[in-house]
């Protein structure tokens, strides 16, 4: 099998799995899960074979041609895609296995695994796509599968609302994305990624419109509102789609189109990411739902990645613009840092979500951290792996997050000190809310019956945790990776000399301040310690979180709804009333008239003939 065929199999296997489940296995949950996990195993295996075997290729096949517009379906498999595919494959496989245990008692087993498969298909499609149009198709498909899976428990009003919210908010971003693709095609004549990298028009609008797609999918300000709500889905879904892979697709897409970037666009991207990182970290502090904390943490980390991408060249590009080659190289440092953090984040955030899933499963679907506590002894394996995840995300030295976050901080330090300050402060908050979460969940005494009777899950629940924990520890050592991802990892900026010292010290300091602060502040109690000690601050943070939803609610209810009602009114009067019903009424009258002509009387019919003959005679005589 050639690499291209293998890649196609990787892409189509989950689709086949989804089709088989949808058509034949809707009632056979066990078989459906087996098929889906098999497909995931195939993806993971094929992804690693392709990535580690150092197969790099591009292949395309023309899909259709309409006038001057020709679109092709193709695969672009470079180091970037290889890294992303490996991450998606490995994390996806872990989460499929975890789902086996987690969803065991769910009645709609088959629908869930079918959804997972269709998601894997769409995600692999995004990774492999060689042009923006194809990327967009799969982009929409992940949105669709995300909708399916968030609303998996659709009997729950909040779940179906959240699914709709995620879908609609993403539409807003995708509209910009689509406009960007159209504009890109219009001004460059192609949407093929490789063709674009060799030749394209410099424009600020195109990258920013394309970035809209990433704002929606990666939940950046101001479209971040859907991600916390998306936690209504089953926890493995949150781990796979809303933490490790799909939301990271926005970052991946940015890295794919980095050649189109111009400095001004990058500045916008940088500030968007920085603002999201800070905002989400602030919101995370007041959350009491274990998954919501993690959701805001994901938002914040995505903000880090977007900021890293935007930071890449901001400063240097002006200095070196005379030499486009150097400018191009420096521009990609952002790609290195962003993709590095994306990979490590995928490992430890998936670990944290699966850990929270294990906790939720153990506590009989209790999600409130103030009703947990004392799980350290009840669920030791979950505790230790979760601890590793927390340590990794807050940047504990020599764990995965430490390296990748340092790379981002260094980039900020070198390019923009304001951003550096904000990100460092965000890192303090990260460490604060993560340690808070960790302490409230696992330490102290159990604060509810559920927590008191918590128990460790089965093998399928714990094995993925261990694998992801190992990856969270080792994922940061780029030297451990096979030498096949150098195309990405060589771009990771590394601090040297004094800058190195500053970065390491800063990163240690922020981690320690946050962790110690959280440890000191939060008591394992049934209420939030911050709310007790400083209700004003707590209230402000809560209001901050709710402000966006309030604004959107106001807009939808007061502005959009009224406009829609106005349009509906006009439609009822003019289109539906005057044009449609009016025309139909006139036609009906004609019909009644014509019907009345058929009197059934033979004499009258003969007169018809006579009339016709008279007309004909007049024609023949030249009278008419």
């Amino acid at each position, binding site marked *: 099998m050639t690499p291209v065929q293998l890649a196609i199999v990787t892409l189509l296997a989950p689709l086949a799995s989804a089709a088989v489940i949808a058509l034949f296995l809707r009632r056979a949950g066990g078989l459906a899960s087996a098929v889906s996990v098999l497909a995931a195993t195939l993806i993971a295996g094929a992804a690693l074979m392709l990535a580690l075997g150092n197969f790099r290729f591009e292949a395309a096949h023309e899909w259709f041609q309409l006038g001057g517009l020709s679109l092709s379906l193709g695969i672009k498999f470079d180091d970037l895609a290889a890294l992303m595919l490996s991450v998606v494959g490995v994390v996806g496989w872990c989460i499929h296995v975890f789902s086996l245990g987690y969803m065991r008692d769910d009645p709609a087993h088959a629908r869930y695994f079918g959804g997972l498969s269709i998601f894997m298909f769409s995600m692999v499609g995004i990774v492999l796509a060689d042009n923006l149009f194809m990327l967009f198709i799969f982009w929409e498909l992940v949105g669709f599968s995300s909708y399916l899976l968030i609303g998996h428990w659709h009997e729950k009003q909040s779940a179906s609302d959240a699914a709709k919210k995620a879908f609609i908010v993403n539409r807003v971003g995708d509209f910009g994305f689509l406009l960007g693709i159209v504009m890109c095609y219009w001004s460059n004549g192609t949407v093929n990624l490789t063709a674009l990298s060799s030749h394209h028009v410099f424009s600020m609008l195109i990258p920013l419109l394309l970035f809209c797609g990433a704002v929606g999918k990666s939940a950046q300000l101001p479209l971040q509102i859907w991600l916390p709500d998306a936690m209504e889905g089953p926890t493995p879904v949150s781990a796979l789609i809303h933490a490790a892979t799909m939301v990271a697709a926005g970052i991946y897409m940015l890295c794919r189109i980095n050649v189109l970037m111009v400095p001004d666009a990058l500045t916008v991207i940088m500030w968007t990411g920085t603002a999201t990182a800070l905002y989400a970290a602030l919101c995370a502090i007041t959350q009491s739902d274990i998954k919501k904390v993690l959701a805001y943490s994901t938002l914040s980390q995505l903000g880090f990645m977007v900021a890293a991408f935007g930071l890449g060249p901001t400063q240097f590009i002006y200095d070196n613009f005379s030499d486009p080659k150097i400018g191009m190289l420096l521009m990609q440092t952002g790609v290195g840092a962003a993709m590095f953090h994306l990979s490590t984040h995928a490992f430890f955030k998936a670990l944290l979500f699966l850990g929270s899933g294990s906790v939720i499963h153990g506590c009989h679907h209790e999600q409130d951290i103030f009703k947990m506590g004392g799980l350290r002894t009840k669920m030791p394996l979950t505790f230790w792996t979760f601890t590793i995840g927390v340590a990794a995300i807050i940047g504990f030295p020599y764990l995965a997050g430490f390296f990748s976050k340092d790379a981002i901080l260094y980039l900020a330090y070198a390019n923009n000190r304001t951003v550096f300050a904000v990100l460092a402060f965000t890192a303090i908050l990260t460490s604060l809310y993560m340690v808070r979460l960790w302490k409230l969940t696992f330490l102290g005494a159990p604060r509810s019956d559920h927590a008191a009777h918590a128990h460790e899950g089965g093998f399928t629940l714990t094995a993925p945790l261990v694998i992801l924990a190992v990856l969270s520890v080792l994922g940061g050592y780029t030297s451990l990776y096979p030498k096949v991802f150098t195309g990405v990892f060589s771009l990771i900026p590394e601090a040297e000399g004094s800058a190195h010292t500053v970065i390491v010290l800063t990163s240690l300091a922020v981690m320690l301040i946050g962790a110690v602060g959280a440890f000191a502040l939060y008591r394992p109690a049934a209420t939030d310690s911050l709310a007790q000690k400083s209700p004003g601050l707590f209230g402000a943070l809560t209001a901050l979180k709710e402000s966006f939803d309030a604004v959107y609610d106001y807009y939808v209810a007061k502005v959009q709804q009224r406009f829609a009602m106005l349009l509906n009114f006009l439609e009822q009067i003019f289109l539906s009333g005057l044009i449609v019903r009016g025309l139909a009424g006139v036609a009906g009258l004609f*019909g009644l008239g014509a*019907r009345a002509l058929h009197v059934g009387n033979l004499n009258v019919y003969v007169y018809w*003939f006579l009339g016709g003959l008279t007309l*004909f005679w007049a024609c023949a005589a030249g009278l008419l």
Partner: protein
Amino acid sequence: MTTDLLQQAAASNQWAAIFPELSLGCLALLLLGLEMVLPKDNQRQIPLVALVGQAGILVGLLINFYTATLDTETFNSLLRHTHQGQVMRVFFLVASLLVTMLGMISLPKQKVPRVEFYHIVLVISAAMMLLAQSNHFVMLFVALETVTVGFYILVSYFRTSPFSLEAGLKYLVMGALSSGLLLFGIALLYGVAGNPALPGHTAEPMGFSGLHSFLATGANAHHFLAASGVLLVLAGIAFKIGAFPFQIWIPDVYQGAPTPVTAFLAVGSKAAGFAVLFNLLQVFSPCSWLLVPVITVMAAATILFGNFAALTQHNVKRLLGLSGVSHAGFLLLGVVASVTVPMAVGAVHFYLFAYLLASFAVFGVMAHVAGANDADQELDHYAGLAKTNPFLAAVLVIGLGSLAGIPPLAGFMGKLFIFVAAFKAGHYGLLGVAIVGVVVSIYYYFGWIKAAFFETPTASGDECQASRPQISVGLVARVVLTLLAMATVVLGFYQGPLGVWVALR
């Protein structure tokens, strides 16, 4: 008349050239003979003999499609065998085959003699086939009268039903009137073409070639008598195809006639009219200054009248009759276009085939759904058909969809070809009228589909349903209906050999 002349005439009698018609006639006689010979119990098999016999003739005709007599005149120029004539022969054979099939469904529901029905259908088909190939007004009139007289009998075939008898009477009177007009037109043409005072007068004014050369000479085409004759002949044909203003008889007769006869009238008789019209259009081509505007106006009026009148019908037979009027209008559009655009002839033939497939699919369903009173077939009777008999409902949808011209069915392609031809010929106004007609037609076709799929039987409908036996579809009917529906779908996607074959001129 000398012996030489007689011998010469006899030599031109190439009986092989009309072998299909002769076979049909023999088959018709065979059926009557079988009825006398066979015991009563076995007489149920006679329609099957008719079916198999016609299928055999059809196969033979298809094999010998490019016969040696193609593009020659036989029987002392009474007949002229053309490609177009061959296409129409196939068309009429298929139509009579399907009418036989419909008869096998409908006739057992009535207390009437059966075998004569098939006999007459076969005779009519043979006459239609001759009609399409006639090259002489005497031949044309005799064949036409054979068809018409046969229909007089068939329309009133259910003689216990007052509707059928009324329809028969109306058809008789109107048919006689139209025959009279046609004959009057022929007489006028005969007189004027044989008038020695006029230039180019001919000794053979009844023959098409003689008449054509007369009309093409000098200002003969503008002669009042010639123009009157042409238009009177046109009026006679307009009665056959149901074109405005000679369409008024259609709903009453279609409603009263037995369902298979309605189908035969709607498809066979109409197509026969068009076959004759095409032949005569070539003969009358010097008169196109008159014919084109007259037919254009007729086409527009026919489309509008047929569609609007069908809007408010509740009886499906009347509805199909009026929709058939509108189809005649669309076909006339193709006829007008064919004067300048040769491809229009192929388009009309394709349309006729698509119309045949779709109409017989619908009539096949109607024959199954109809109760004991054949004239009483209301839209309400179709309520809930999709539930009680999904097969018939599916066939109905495909048939009606094709009649309405919904892509990707054959009817759509037929309309498309005709509209393209009309566009090429520059009949934009008529095209606009036709498009309005299509839009209107979708309303009543879909009303029928809606009845079958989305309506549940009402209280009164329940009674009807209860009084009716469960609809059972026999094997032959099932196969034929499936074939019709499939052909309708396939022809929409892929015109292939039929498209080429029909369009080949």
